[in-house]
C-alpha cells in the first residue's frame, strides 16, 4: 500500500480485556453506536462472529464492509478485506481481535499488520485485545497460567494507540456467562474451564490487565506533558526529577545465544526497558562477525532470536570474540550499558558444561556493572 506523507496517520483505540467474554467487543460497538449517532462515519471492518446475541444485535445496526473470502485447504475463511475498507475510506473502522493470525494466503500474516495499513491511510481504528496477547507479557502469562499464548502483538503496536480502555468485569460474572453458554459453544466450555478460566487464572489475568492499562495511561500522560507546559503533582514522584534522570539514563544489553531461553530474555528486557524508559540492545558474540560458520541449527536459532529482537524494536549487534563472556562485558563497558540481561545458568552439571556457563562468567567479570539473571518463567508454571 503506498503511503503518502501528506495523509496524517489515523489514531488507534484499543479495548483491553483479560479473557473472552469480558465485553470488549460489546463496549466497542456501544461506543461506535454513540459515535454514529453523533454523526461520525463508522464502519465495521471485522467482527468475530462467535459473539453473544446482544453483541450481534449491536453489530447488525452498523454498516459493515463485506469480508474477503480466502480458500485454504479446500475450506473458505472470512478475513477482513483491508483493500475494501480503504476504498470505503471511513473516518473510523472497527477491527475486532487485534491479535488474530490471518489465514495463509492473506496479504499480510497478522491482523495488526492490516491495522497498520489502515492507520497509514489515515483511518482511525478501534480494536479489541486481551492482555495475554501482549508480546512482552508472554512468559509471565505462561508462568501464571501454564498456558503458552501463540498469537501475540508487539508492544510497540499497543504503544501507538492514542487511547487504551480497560474493559472490566468480575471473574464470577465471567464464569456465569461462560456457564450460561454466552461466551463459547457448549463443547468449548470444558476446554475453557481447564484453561484461562481455571482457578486463580482469571483473577491474575485481570490484575495484569488493570496494571497494564494503568501503565498505558501513565505513558500517555508523560507524552502529553512533554508537548505542553503542563505541571501536575504526579502519582509517581520519580517524574519530578526527570531532568536528573536523563544523565543516568539506563541502557539494557540483552545477551543472545542459540538457547531457546533467549526469547524469554528478549521479552523481559523489552518490558523492563519500557518501564525504565531505557534504551535496549541485543548482542550476539561469535568467533567471526559472520554467522555462516555456525552449525545450521544454531545459526537458524540465533537468526530467529535476532529477528525477534528487531521485531520488538530492539537494536541488534553481532560482534566477533573468542571469549564470549569477556566480549559481552567489554561491549557493555564501551557502550555505556547499565544492565546486562542474561539467561539463568542451566542447573544440571552436564548442561552447565555444554553451555560453557557464559552467565556465571559474565556475573564474575562484570563487577562494575549490573547483571540481571532472568528467571526461566516457564518452569514455575503449575497445572
Amino acid at each position: 500500500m503506498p503511503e503518502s506523507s501528506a495523509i496524517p496517520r489515523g489514531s488507534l483505540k484499543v479495548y483491553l480485556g483479560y479473557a473472552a467474554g469480558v465485553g470488549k467487543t460489546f463496549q466497542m460497538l456501544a461506543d461506535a453506536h454513540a459515535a454514529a449517532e453523533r454523526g461520525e462515519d463508522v464502519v465495521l471492518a471485522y467482527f468475530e462472529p462467535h459473539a453473544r446475541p446482544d453483541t450481534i444485535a449491536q453489530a447488525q445496526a452498523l454498516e459493515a464492509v463485506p469480508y474477503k473470502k480466502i480458500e485454504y485447504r479446500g475450506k473458505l475463511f472470512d478475513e477482513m478485506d483491508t483493500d475494501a475498507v480503504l476504498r470505503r475510506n471511513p473516518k473510523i473502522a472497527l477491527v475486532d481481535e487485534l491479535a488474530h493470525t490471518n489465514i495463509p494466503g492473506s496479504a499480510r500474516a497478522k491482523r495488526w499488520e492490516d491495522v497498520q495499513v489502515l492507520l497509514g491511510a489515515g483511518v482511525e481504528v478501534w480494536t479489541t485485545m486481551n492482555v495475554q496477547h501482549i508480546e512482552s507479557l508472554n512468559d509471565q502469562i505462561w508462568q501464571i497460567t501454564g498456558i503458552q499464548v501463540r498469537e501475540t502483538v508487539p508492544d510497540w503496536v499497543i504503544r501507538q494507540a492514542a487511547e487504551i480502555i480497560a474493559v472490566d468485569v468480575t471473574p464470577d460474572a465471567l464464569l456465569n456467562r461462560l456457564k450460561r453458554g454466552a461466551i463459547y459453544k457448549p463443547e468449548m466450555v470444558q476446554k475453557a474451564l481447564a484453561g484461562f478460566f481455571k482457578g486463580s487464572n482469571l483473577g491474575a489475568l485481570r490484575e495484569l490487565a488493570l496494571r497494564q492499562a494503568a501503565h498505558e495511561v501513565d505513558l500517555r500522560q508523560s507524552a502529553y506533558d512533554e508537548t505542553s507546559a503542563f505541571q501536575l503533582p504526579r502519582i509517581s514522584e520519580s517524574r519530578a526529577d526527570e531532568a536528573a534522570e536523563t544523565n543516568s539514563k539506563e541502557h539494557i544489553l540483552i545477551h543472545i545465544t542459540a538457547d531457546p531461553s533467549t526469547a524469554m530474555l528478549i521479552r523481559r528486557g523489552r518490558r523492563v526497558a519500557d518501564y525504565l524508559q531505557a534504551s535496549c540492545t541485543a548482542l550476539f558474540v561469535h568467533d567471526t562477525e559472520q554467522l555462516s560458520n555456525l552449525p545450521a541449527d544454531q545459526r537458524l536459532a540465533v537468526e530467529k532470536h535476532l529477528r525477534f529482537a528487531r521485531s520488538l524494536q530492539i537494536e541488534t549487534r553481532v560482534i566477533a570474540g573468542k571469549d564470549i563472556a569477556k566480549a559481552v562485558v567489554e561491549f557493555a563497558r564501551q557502550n555505556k550499558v547499565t544492565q546486562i540481561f542474561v539467561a539463568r545458568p542451566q542447573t544440571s552439571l552436564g548442561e552447565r558444561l555444554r553451555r560453557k556457563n557464559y552467565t556465571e562468567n559474565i556475573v564474575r567479570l562484570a563487577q562494575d556493572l549490573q547483571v540481571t539473571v532472568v528467571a526461566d518463567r516457564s518452569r514455575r508454571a503449575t497445572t
Partner: protein
Amino acid sequence: MRLTELPRPSPERLLRQVQAEESKRWGARLKIFLGYAPGVGKSYRMLDEARRRHQRGEDVIVGAVQGQQSEEVQALLSNLEVIPTIQTPEGEAVNTEAILNRTPQVCVIDPLAAKNPPQSRNPYRWQDVQDLLRNGVSVLTSVNLLHVEEYKEKVRAITGKDTAETIPKSFLLAADDIVIVDVPPDLCLWRQGEKLTSTGISNYQERKLSELRELALLLTAEVVDAQLESYVQAHGIEPVFGTHERFLICMTPHSDALAMIESGKRNKERFQGELHAVYVCEPGQSRKDAVKIRRYLEAAEKAGATTEVLESDNPISAIVDFAKDKRITQIFIGHSIHDSWRERFFGDPVLRLIRAAEGIDVRVFPH
C-alpha cells in the same frame, strides 16, 4: 454528640469485623462499581446489572439512587421496585428497616459514600450496607475515587474538589467484588456537557482526569491482588507470581546497599510495584557491621521499602524462602568480594543464590 465527632473505626479493625461477619452472611455479596470521576457511567453499569439480574428472576429492589439521572438511567429504574429513602430536612437516609422487612435478594444502594442525617439508624450509609449484608441481602453500589478516604487528598490536589463524605479503603478491600468503570476522559467530560475532542489526552482537563483514572485502575488492581491472595490461601494452592512487580533488596554490610536502595526506589515507582529489603543476621556479627546495617535499614524504609531482619545460618535459603513467601519477582544482591574459606568450599554465594532462586530474576549490583 455531632456526627463529625463520632469515632471512626480503624481500617484494620473494620476489615477484621467485615471479614468476621462474612461467615454470618447467607451468601449475601457486596459488589462495588468504582469510577474515577462523575460521568464515567457507574450508575448505568450498576443499574444495568440490576436489570439483567431482575430479568433472570432474582428479587432486585432499589434502596437509594443518585439525584441527577440521565434518560438511560431513568429507563432502567422504571422497571425496578424502589423503596424510597427517608427524607429529613438535614438529608436523606436509606430506609434499612423497610428493606430488611421486604428482604429482597439484591438491593441497589447508590452512592455508597453518604452521611446519614442525625437520628438515623447508622451514622454512615456504608454501615447500612453492612446491616443489609449481615441479614442476607446482597448489595450493588457505586463509589467515586474522590469518596475513598485515602484518596481524598490526592484527588483534591488534582481537581480542587473536596468532600466530607468518604468510605475507608478497607471497605473496598473487603468487598466480594469490585468493578472499575473505565472510559476515556473526553467521553467522561462530554457526558458532563463539554465538547468532544480527539482520541487521547488533548487538553488540561483531560490530563487531570487521566491522573485520577490511573489511580482508580491501580486501586482496583490492588483489590484484585488482595482477592487473589485470599483465593490462593483458601484453596491451599501455590502463590501466583508475576501479576505485580515486587523487588527485594538483600543487604549485607559489604554491599553497596545505598545504590541498591536508590535503584529499588526507582523501580518501585516506575513499575508501581512493591519494595522489600532484608538483612540476614548471621551469628558473630561485629558491632561496626551492626551500625552499618541499621543505617541501611533506615535508608530502605525512607525509600518506601518494608524491611525485615531474618535470622538464619543459611542466608541463601532464608532469602529464597522469604522471596517466595512475598511473591518477589526480582532480587537485588551485591557482588561479594571477600574470599572466605566457605566461598572457596561452597562457591560464590551470589551464584548460589542465582541457582536457588528459581522463577525469580536476580540482579547483581557492583560495589
